[in-house]
């Protein structure tokens, strides 16, 4: 099944929606506005009737794999079950209908929810305050780095470097660069953890912060985290926690206790707000007391049960987005936290770790497992053992798609060749993990016996492997002015 573009189905004169009339005596726009301000040619949006619009999007939806129907073991992304109760909560008119500039008296429930969510997140990660403003993880990283920058500057300390491990997610160096820092990479040690020696070598009074995720992107807990924190703090730098992997140890330990000064959380990972095919998420940032003065404005403050937005924060880095964050996602995350409670969140992390270790055990022998010892909530395997058959991580991924599983993250982290990064999460049953392991086994067998066949999978999806290289090439031709086909958008033929 495939589906034409809405633009390709458009027909002049198709029944558009009925809409209310103005019913007031007033001139038309083109009677009042200067001609130069008016649009001459209407935008060529598709023209379709409602039944066609709904059919179109319903069919598009059915072309997707999603957590709702498939195991989605995308490493680093914590694709856990998105509770339907969250959706019911977030669509309550008492939330969706609020204008951001209503008087605070009229939004006490919303502010109370934000305040309680902040308290809960403080408890989970062990920090003093949390800003709910950032819209996603990367946004949170940048917000945190801006606070760290402001902290150093407030002391007249113009530090220019940020340290980032070579196994870090791409957003870390990008966020550092966006904050105006120079990025210095720290190597991984052979055991997959950060190299202390290299860290020591790179640390200096120029360094504003070390960005770290823990467990790291290999799914390994940074055992020496307390030493690392001491080293970093000794040079006056701050320690930043990329919370993408927080699902590993809620209720077990806390980044704040490990020495992290600033922490972002991905509510769309750990706290079950849906990922939406690429957002919206939410990336709150928690900080220790020293960084609190630099939090974005406004903060939510509670005095004698009354809530207000506090804009009077002279050292604040300012706003990082409009209004107060992705409020709808905050409602979902808070609903989840209330339903799970401290006991539930703790067990969730335990089960996440258990599932990852179990699944890693189950695929042992089929794929390479480059790192010894237990993993945390995810693990990185490698398809390099299939290299002799000409099979790559990509082929394994496509084979999984063919077998009704979404594929793990591949080719990340960069430090593992042919990486296959698997994060099962706590909301997948043992039966599903077993079925996945069976599929891997079958694929590995096929890799050995019929590698050519595997290289042509998937067959039963709406499309076969798409030629991304050709697309990139065509885009380039277009951007160079050689071709008229924009590739990045539809144009009527001819």
């Amino acid at each position, binding site marked *: 099944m*495939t589906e034409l573009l809405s633009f390709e189905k458009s027909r002049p004169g198709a029944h558009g929606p009925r809409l209310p009339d103005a019913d007031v005596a007033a001139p038309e726009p083109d009677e009042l506005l200067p001609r130069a301000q008016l649009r001459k040619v209407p935008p060529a949006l598709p023209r379709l009737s409602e039944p066609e619009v709904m059919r179109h999007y319903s069919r598009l939806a059915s072309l997707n794999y999603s957590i709702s129907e498939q195991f989605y073991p995308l490493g680093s992304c914590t694709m856990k079950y998105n509770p339907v109760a969250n959706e019911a909560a977030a669509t309550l008119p008492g939330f969706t209908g609020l204008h951001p500039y209503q008087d605070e008296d009229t939004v006490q429930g919303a502010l109370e929810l934000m305040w309680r969510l902040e308290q809960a997140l403080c408890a989970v990660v062990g920090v003093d305050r949390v800003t709910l403003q950032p819209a996603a993880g990367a946004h949170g990283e940048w917000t945190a780095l801006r606070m760290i920058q402001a902290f150093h500057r407030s002391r007249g300390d113009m530090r220019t470097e940020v340290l980032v491990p070579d196994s870090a997610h791409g957003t870390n160096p990008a966020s550092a660069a966006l904050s105006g820092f120079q990025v210095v990479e720290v190597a991984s040690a052979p055991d997959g953890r950060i190299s202390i020696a290299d860290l020591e070598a790179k640390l200096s009074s120029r360094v504003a912060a070390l960005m770290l995720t823990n467990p790291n992107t290999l799914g390994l807990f940074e055992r020496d985290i307390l030493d690392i924190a001491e080293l970093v703090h000794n040079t006056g730098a701050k320690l930043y926690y990329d919370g993408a992997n927080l699902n590993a140890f809620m209720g077990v330990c806390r980044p704040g206790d490990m020495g992290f000064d600033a922490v972002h959380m991905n509510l769309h990972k750990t706290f079950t707000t849906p990922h939406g095919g690429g957002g919206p998420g939410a990336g709150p940032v928690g900080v220790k007391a020293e960084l609190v003065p630099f939090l974005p404005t406004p903060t939510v403050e509670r005095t004698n049960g009354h809530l207000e937005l506090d804009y009077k924060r002279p050292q604040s880095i300012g706003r990082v987005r409009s209004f107060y964050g992705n409020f709808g996602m905050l409602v979902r995350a808070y609903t989840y936290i209330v339903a799970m409670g401290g006991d539930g969140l703790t067990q969730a992390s335990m089960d996440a770790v258990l599932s990852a270790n179990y699944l890693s055990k189950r695929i042992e022998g089929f794929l390479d497992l480059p790192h010894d*010892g237990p993993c945390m909530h995810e693990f990185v395997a490698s398809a390099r053992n299939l290299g002799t058959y000409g099979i790559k991580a990509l082929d394994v991924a496509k084979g999984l798609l063919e077998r009704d599983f979404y594929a793990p993250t591949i080719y990340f982290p960069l430090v593992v060749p042919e990486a296959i990064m698997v994060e099962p999460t706590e909301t997948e049953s043992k039966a599903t993990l077993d079925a996945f392991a069976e599929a891997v086994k079958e694929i590995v067998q096929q890799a050995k016996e019929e590698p050519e066949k595997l290289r042509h999978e998937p067959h039963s999806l709406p499309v076969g492997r798409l030629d991304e290289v050709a697309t990139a090439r065509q885009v380039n031709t277009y951007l160079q002015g050689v071709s008229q086909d924009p590739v990045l958008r539809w144009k009527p033929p001819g």
Partner: protein
Amino acid sequence: MAYLVHSPEERAEMLGAIGVQSMDDLLVDIPRSLRIPRLELPNGLSEFETMAQIGALAARNRVFPDRLTFQGGGVYRRFIPAAVAAVTSKPEFYTAYTPYQPEASQGTLQAIYEFQTLIAELTALDVANASLYDGATAVAEAAMMAHVHTGRREVLVAGYVHPEYVEVLRAFGDGRGIKVRKGSEPTSKTAAVIFQQPDFLGLLVDAQELASRAHESGALAIACVDPISLALLAPPGEYGADIAVGEGQQLGLHPNYGGPHVGYIACRKELVRRLPGRLVGSAHDADGRRGFVLTLTAREQHIRREKATSNICTNHSLCALAASVYMTYMGAEGMRHVASVSFKRAHSLADRLAALPGWELAFPERQFLNEFPIRVPKAAVVRRRLARKGILGGLDVHRWFRELRGVLTFTCTEVNDPRAIDELVEALAA
């Protein structure tokens, strides 16, 4: 424990299969001293109790009805077709990740491709991306593009651009050492002139003139544009804007106390390589079937890391989907219709308010679409009086602009029926 799956027996079985005794054996890498006795949160609740608690919080908010909401300032009440929620509530869309595996993500990819086309059409620019977080960060990202493109370190904010967007722009600029200046006279140091159309007060600016001035100094012109207005107004691509950005909340998204909404960004071909965020392009499989893929990823953080055009990863895909459904449902004609209904009602309201004793339009010489600033005798009294009648409206813009003491903005859209307008006027006349 609501959303957990494993039974105690299965846990034991799994531990056994791994070959360990207990969970502690799996957590050995965590220093003992770091282990906490328990997570200091109340125990979990049943769904029933959870929803009662959340429902009680929702009930502690006051929701002004659509038709009696005359407040804008960047977030507007508009008719949202039921089609929007019917699409965005499909789990196949909302529980998928960023479409890394194209064969299993054609729904999301095609929807983004259509969104890119819709925005490109609306703005009359060459290429649009998959979405940004909101209007504010879109302005900031555009400014960063201009900075990199021109190598210059100053951006100019011309006229009444949304004050929160400017604050965000400053926060972005601060980190990178880019100065944000108010004014409309670019110099050879200016990377971009940024303006909003209609501006924060609802007034039309001379976009053509601002764009020309920018270009004369070698700066880029960045237009921050209300997408609905583009059904009526000349598009950025026509008056020479190099980058168009904006907030898409009006395209089918609820106010939601400010978010999630969606930012859009579109630009001329020459700037495409500097675009932040995801881009989807069309592709083909070995059998010649058309499909869609993420492309030009070499701009992005996961490939380019610190040299990426932006750090954005998760964007606002589902909100962009809502906007696509809205635009596809309404069509150009539908959008034009609601834009002109809004225009007419706002003008009727403006006339009636300006006739109240002591009230006068703040900028009588300037044109507006469906939001306008008006000077009133006692701003706080007006808001309170309206609130008492269940009406939300009159945004006090003095809060952001010193020179606008006593100025409120009012907004009308197709949701404010004529009777609602009467109610507003009556409440003030009384």
